[in-house]
């Protein structure tokens, strides 16, 4: 019965995949355009990178399952679930270094996505790690929700490596990747990267 839920969600995913791809392409293109002025005026040590991705099928299904209380689909109600409930089927990440550039980029994008819902990623110390917004590109799709994130580059690159290593581990490591010691280490890395940026920015200010 659970297989029927999964099969139905896979079918739905592949029905919408062309639309998800179009939304990702539009988002990436629009965000590159909106950040062009910043990109062209970067100092030698500053960086800005725009990356898009389409959530893969199995990640989408797993993510949807984990949105349910108890992380479990009701096998007797396969029609209750839809991948279209996910906020990030198409996603764009804007990586910025140093953090001082975040506001500039964030403001440039907000003007084009004013009604998108903000859901920032917070660190254990309540610092905003990533500014995250989700919504619809209504001229293209009223069904596929997209998300964009403006993230300090060091944190974003760490997440990329960590995500593929820890969330898609080989079978012997499954279940261990999310253990409490690993979570604490992840927080430590994020804290250190933020401290590095703070120190780097004061170094640049003092040298100016």
């Amino acid at each position: 019965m659970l297989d029927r839920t999964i099969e139905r969600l896979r079918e739905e995913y592949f029905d919408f995949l062309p639309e998800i791809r179009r939304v990702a392409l539009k988002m990436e293109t629009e965000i590159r355009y909106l950040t062009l002025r910043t990109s062209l005026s970067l100092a030698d040590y500053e960086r800005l990178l725009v990356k898009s991705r389409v959530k893969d099928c199995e990640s989408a299904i797993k993510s949807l399952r984990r949105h349910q209380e108890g992380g479990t689909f009701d096998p007797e109600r396969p029609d209750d679930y839809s991948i279209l409930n996910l906020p990030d089927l198409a996603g764009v990440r804007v990586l910025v270094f140093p953090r001082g550039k975040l506001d500039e980029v964030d403001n440039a994008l907000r003007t084009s996505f004013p009604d998108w819902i903000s859901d920032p990623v917070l660190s254990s110390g309540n610092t905003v790690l990533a500014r995250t917004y989700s919504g619809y590109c209504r001229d293209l799709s009223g069904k596929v929700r997209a998300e964009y994130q403006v993230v300090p580059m060091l944190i974003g690159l760490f997440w990329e490596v960590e995500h593929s290593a820890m969330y898609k581990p080989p079978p012997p490591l499954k279940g261990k990747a999310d253990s409490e010691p690993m979570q604490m280490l992840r927080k430590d890395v994020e804290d250190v990267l933020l401290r590095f940026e703070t120190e780097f920015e004061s170094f640049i200010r003092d040298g100016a």
Partner: protein
Amino acid sequence: MAGRATEKTQTQNLQVIKMKKDILRAANYGYNFDRDIYFNRKTKKAFSLEFVDDHSEDELKRRIAENTGGNGWIFYFNSTPSEGVKRELERVLG
């Protein structure tokens, strides 16, 4: 910015979450990261993350202390899980 709580509120929330985690840990509850539930195989009780978030520390202590006989799994969820969900979770928790 919408969706962002004040710093003070967030700090208070984090303290409450830590206290609840400590209560569960002291009662020998493990955490299943894939299902986001706290569970104890000996007492056969499981708490959803949502239930833990939405109920007080005292309520949590009361539920932990509750004598349920331990014959079958008891699920403390905000929304009562269906029989199908219970079966699936019983299979996962062993």
